């Protein structure tokens, strides 16, 4: 069992002085679902931006560490090169081209990615626009409409559909649940789980909803202040007392309500 994506000792410095990522290590096994979760500002987004090659364009530098994808170092690749290696990315917002039609959106993904060789593990199930429109009936109905008129859920479908067209080896989903109603959140997660089950698609979910992610992920990494503070399999994390208390909001198996003001002042512990 080899790891598809391996990050070792990643260190990122913002604007010359602030160290946002202070040595993060994790790996994503082939065919697994892995969750990268944590508070805002914990460094999740910075980490995935490093993986997909977006950091060097900003006032941000990777000062240390290695990022390897399928045995190859990708820290210096540019975004489109990372995408062509099979890293598909569903960003947090701005995930579709509003001024293009649904069909054109998919066409862009199709024309932009040249399928290279026969690397194993690339999800080649979906090759044409028709495949995607068959998969998502809601999209087929609006194929020639501008995507600005799509609803939140349809946008998510379109984004994932476009990613599938690029024959991904690894699908990174950033904040799949942000701004979606709870039921939609559940459905997005279920869909990712199903893609993983049916086609062995490797998925990296970056989210803050620890409970939701752990319900489908095989492994989880919890970040805080630019460090990994908890790591392990789903079962391990779900049973860990501190994770339960601070991330799932349960204490002694009792759901804690938002009205228990007394409990709010406390000192957060690590480990």
């Amino acid at each position, binding site marked *: 069992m080899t790891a598809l994506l391996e990050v070792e000792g990643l260190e990122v410095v913002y604007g010359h002085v602030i160290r946002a990522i202070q040595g993060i290590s994790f790996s994503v096994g082939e065919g697994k679902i892995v969750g990268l979760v944590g508070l805002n500002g914990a460094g999740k987004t910075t980490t995935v931006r490093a993986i*997909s090659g977006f950091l060097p364009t900003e006032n941000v530098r990777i000062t240390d560490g290695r990022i390897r994808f399928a045995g190859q170092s990708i820290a210096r690749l540019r*975004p489109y090169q990372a995408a062509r290696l099979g890293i598909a990315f569903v960003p947090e917002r701005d995930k579709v081209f509003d001024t*293009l039609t649904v069909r054109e959106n998919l066409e862009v993904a199709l024309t932009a990615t040249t399928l290279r060789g026969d690397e194993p593990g690339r999800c080649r199930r979906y090759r044409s626009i028709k495949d995607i429109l068959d998969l998502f009936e809601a999209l087929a109905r609006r194929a020639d409409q501008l995507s600005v008129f799509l609803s939140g859920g349809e946008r998510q479908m379109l984004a994932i559909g476009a990613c599938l067209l690029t024959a991904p080896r690894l699908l990174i989903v950033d904040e799949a649940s942000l701004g979606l109603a709870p039921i939609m959140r559940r459905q997005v997660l279920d869909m990712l789980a199903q893609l993983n089950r049916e086609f062995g698609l490797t998925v990296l979910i970056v989210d803050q909803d620890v409970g939701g992610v752990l319900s489908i992920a095989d492994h989880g990494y919890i970040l805080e202040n630019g460090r990994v503070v908890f790591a392990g399999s789903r079962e391990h994390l779900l049973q860990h007392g501190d994770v339960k208390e601070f991330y799932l909001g349960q204490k002694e198996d009792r759901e804690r309500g938002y009205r228990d003001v007394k409990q709010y002042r406390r000192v957060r512990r690590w480990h």
Partner: protein
Amino acid sequence: MVALVLTTVASWGIYALLGIGIVLVYRTSRVLNIASGEMAIFIGYVAATSIQYGLPFPVAVLFSMGAATVLGFVIFWFAIRGVMGEPPHVGLMITVGIAVILNGLMIVLFGGGMIAIPAGLPAFTTIGQVQLPTPDVVATIGAWFSIAVIAVIYRLTNLGLQMRAVAERVTLSAQRGLNVDRTVALSWIVGLLAAGLAGVLHGERSFVALSASAIGISALISCLIGGMDSLKGVVIAALIVAAAETLTARYIDPRYVLIAPVAILLVILIVRPWGLFGTVEEIRRV
């Protein structure tokens, strides 16, 4: 009268070509190119100088188009690439810098004087019963042919689709595996080719000189009157600007030609700030 119409039509083509270049690079890289006039005249100088060195007109045009390609790439690679995604005024100020550099280069390399670009054709063409000045005819045909080519590329090819994708979301395009730098570089090269050709045609009609970069201002005004997100709008607005200028020069005073388009622009900015064919969203975004 016929001459007046032909002058208008010829400058219409030149402004439209230059304006399309501005809109194209604006849409893909969100940079409002204020330096388009300088770029056009710079390439015009290249053509004029190579004719002075003895190259025939068509070869000189080809040579200057080569120079435009190189210049477009250089400008994109060394200046624009670094400010993609920055707020719009940064790109604007970069092009201000580029305009100054090009102006300086024109002085240092070409002396900055007035040079004509002779096409080596007879002074008048006779079509049916009418005698027309050849330079205007050449400029008109050249400009409209190029506009047609650009329109086809933009609307019907994959490159055009990718340009439109990049125009909307740079980050997402890269995430979909699109080489954004290449697409934007190509759009700058197309923009420079358009500008360069406009400069050469302008030189062929009259002459190139430092002051001739004012055609860039006319083209910019056309873009704003038409709306920054609409190729069609620019073409129509260029006609308005060209006509206004020709009439001012003919009936008022050639020194004040810019006043007429400026007045029209002011009216447009008051009544319809997003331009005749622009969308309201466009103005909210910038």
